[in-house]
């Protein structure tokens, strides 16, 4: 009898620490008009955490528990997902939707849970003095717009004087983000900017492309997502708009965006913030996760542009957890420790190599004042014959002299509107 009690007690003791875990919510969308982008991203995000569980037993000996929640890219469903998962001890939210991000910024700030919007969301959140709980490293939309213009400057011998540039954008908070930056850049560099909104979900673009056909702009920049991208590439092909003058942002540059237009999409350009092609870590994911039947989704997206980006997002979160564990000396961290970890995050080339993903993104450091990272992006081009993206340039830096004042202005306006006291980052 006594032995049974001891055994039971031992069982409880053994089960006790195993119960503690790191909770990662995944607000994914595998349905609706944006699922084409949502599925590979979520697959990459979940597979990487599953890899850490299967190979290393989690992070710092702590198992990771992923809670999935379907948002269908809908803000109301996103809020519902947030409310239903925040009580589980969620460490960081990555909703992959600018609309949901705007909903979550005030909520996560009030609940003190970090929000990481990698390459999307509210650009001015990169000002850590105002947005204590929001991070958008390693790059944001204004950086992206600036990188595209810098690339075009480079291609046109340093001058865009008198050029005509059209912005084709998703008519939502997401698509409107780059307009301010592009307007300022157009004044600075003397190009003509015209804006063409496309309404959700983006299947109907006949009018916009008719206008492009009439106006014949020198370049078309696209801020698109979901089904809008495929339709735009197809429409561009229909009016025989030169593909190498058509540039998408990093959410408009996945394989499935260009494939439907067939050979006509050859030469289409887009931004990317990651590396293309195979990485050593993919083999590990295949060996430890997929072969054990734990693949997220169908398991057929490994190595695609958005899969890599989802895995990259997971890697940044995992590294932040590790940093937080080191700072606080405990393995079971809380959301506020996670925040400290994200703010002290440092990604180096060596570390990325160690993790089996050399050069997957830029090397950067997050600081108290700068939650935005370096903002670098590279340009890639679609090769329709081989159905693959080809990297054209190395990482291009944005023009910080334009972005910084804008970030300052917008974040200060937000601080004033919401009575936020600025944090002191000088210490």
């Amino acid at each position: 009898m006594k032995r049974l009690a001891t055994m039971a007690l031992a069982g409880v003791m053994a089960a006790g620490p195993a119960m503690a875990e790191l909770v990662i919510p995944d607000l994914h969308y595998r349905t609706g008009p944006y699922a084409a982008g949502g599925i590979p991203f979520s697959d990459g995000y979940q597979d990487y955490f599953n890899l850490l569980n299967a190979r290393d037993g989690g992070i710092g000996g702590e198992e990771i528990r992923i809670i999935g929640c379907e948002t269908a890219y809908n803000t109301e469903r996103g809020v519902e997902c947030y409310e239903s998962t925040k009580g589980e001890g969620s460490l960081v939210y990555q909703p992959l939707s600018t609309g949901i991000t705007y909903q979550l910024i005030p909520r996560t700030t009030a609940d003190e849970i970090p929000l990481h919007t990698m390459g999307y969301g509210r650009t001015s959140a990169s000002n850590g003095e105002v947005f204590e709980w929001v991070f958008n490293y390693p790059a944001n939309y204004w950086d992206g717009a600036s990188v595209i213009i810098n690339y075009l400057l480079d291609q046109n011998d340093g001058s865009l004087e008198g050029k005509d540039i059209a912005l084709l954008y998703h008519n939502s908070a997401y698509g409107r983000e780059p307009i301010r930056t592009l307007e300022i850049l157009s004044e600075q560099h003397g190009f003509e900017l015209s804006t063409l909104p496309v309404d959700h979900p983006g299947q109907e673009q006949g009018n916009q492309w008719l206008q492009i056909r009439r106006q014949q702009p020198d370049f078309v920049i696209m801020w698109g997502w979901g089904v809008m991208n495929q339709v735009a590439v197809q429409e561009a092909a229909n009016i025989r708009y030169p593909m190498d003058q058509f540039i998408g942002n990093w959410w408009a540059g996945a394989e499935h965006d260009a494939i439907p237009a067939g050979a006509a999409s050859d030469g289409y350009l887009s931004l990317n913030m990651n590396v293309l092609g195979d990485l050593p870590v993919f083999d590990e994911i295949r060996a430890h996760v997929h072969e054990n039947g734990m693949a997220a989704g169908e398991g057929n997206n490994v190595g695609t542009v958005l899969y890599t980006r989802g895995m990259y997002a997971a890697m940044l979160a995992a590294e932040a957890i590790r940093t937080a564990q080191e700072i606080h000396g405990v393995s079971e961290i809380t959301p506020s420790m996670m925040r400290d970890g994200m703010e002290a995050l440092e990604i180096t080339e060596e570390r990325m190599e160690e993790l089996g993903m050399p050069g997957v993104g830029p090397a950067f450091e997050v600081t108290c004042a700068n939650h935005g990272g370096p903002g670098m992006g590279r340009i890639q081009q679609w090769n329709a014959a081989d159905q693959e993206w080809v990297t054209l340039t190395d990482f291009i830096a944005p023009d910080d002299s334009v972005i910084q004042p804008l970030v300052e202005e917008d974040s200060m306006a937000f601080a004033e509107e919401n009575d936020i006291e600025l944090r002191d980052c000088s210490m």
Partner: protein
Amino acid sequence: MFYREAGDFKTSYAEDNQTFPIKFDRYRYYVVLAVAVLIVPFVINDYWANSLLIPFLIYAIAAIGLNILVGYCGQVSLGTGGFMAVGAYSTYKLMTAFPWMDMVSVTLLSGLITALVGVLFGLPSLRIKGFYLAVATLAAQFFLVWLFNRVPWFYNYSASGQINAPERTMFGMAVTGPNAEVWVKYLFCLFFVVLLAWLARNLTRGSIGRQWMAIRDMDIAAEIIGVNPLRAKLTAFAISSFFVGVAGALLFSVYLGAVEVGEAYGINKSFLVLFMIIIGGLGSIFGAFAGAAFMMLLPVFLKIVGVDMMGWPADIVAHFQLVIVGALIIFFLVVEPHGLAQLWRLAKEKLRLWPFPY
């Protein structure tokens, strides 16, 4: 046994005309109200309030509003989302232009502004009916969303084109904004629901309601017996839009906090509210509540059963939800056009005769 008229004597006209003629119903109503006001605020947590109760209350207002127009007056409308957007943008403009104004006035004023817009778009209903009216209101839906997207004045020239509800307090408690306690938000919405449901119930059984129903059942006959179709139809549009506007305002200011018009108030919202009254029951206040509760509960129920208990992939469950809602709508239209409200009515009828049905 308990549920019967016998022994409950009415000695005045007022008593004879009351909403709940059966004693048991009357008490049940007060018990529900007492639980909602005195108990629920103390026990709700963030999750239950934010994913179920608050949206349920808000959509109940919208469903009552649409039910007045479609269920009582017989004028089909697909413009609900657009009118909700009018309420939301009015609220935003009022909140930012007059920061001293309290939220009750802001919400009611937004309702009034929506009523005006509703009357404007209701004018075609005097000449066109049925399908054609549905198309005209559909045009209102698209036009209004386009307008709020297109004219920067509506969103105060913000770079993102979104509107954000600033924090407003009542009696020292935050009602809007991220720091508002859920029970405050809940009580705020409940106040409007009780007020507006009471108003709707009494309007629909008074002379205006009878005029609406006369128009619904046969407009020419109604005209012959002296109902003014202009007045009846436009009051239906005005009052319906008032309710829908209040719902849109609350959805923005209390529930969502930040809104992008095309997404939050798109055509999907019009259909959602229309489905609520079809499933709940056309021409019934209770039906509006039942439909709103059903449409709010179904996704959460499916998620709990499908994802949490059965462990199915979330996307399959999300797809199933669409299938189930579609099947239910066809089912209700074919089998029980009066919706859940009629089932409730039948149940009550059976209950009255129990245990000796004849």
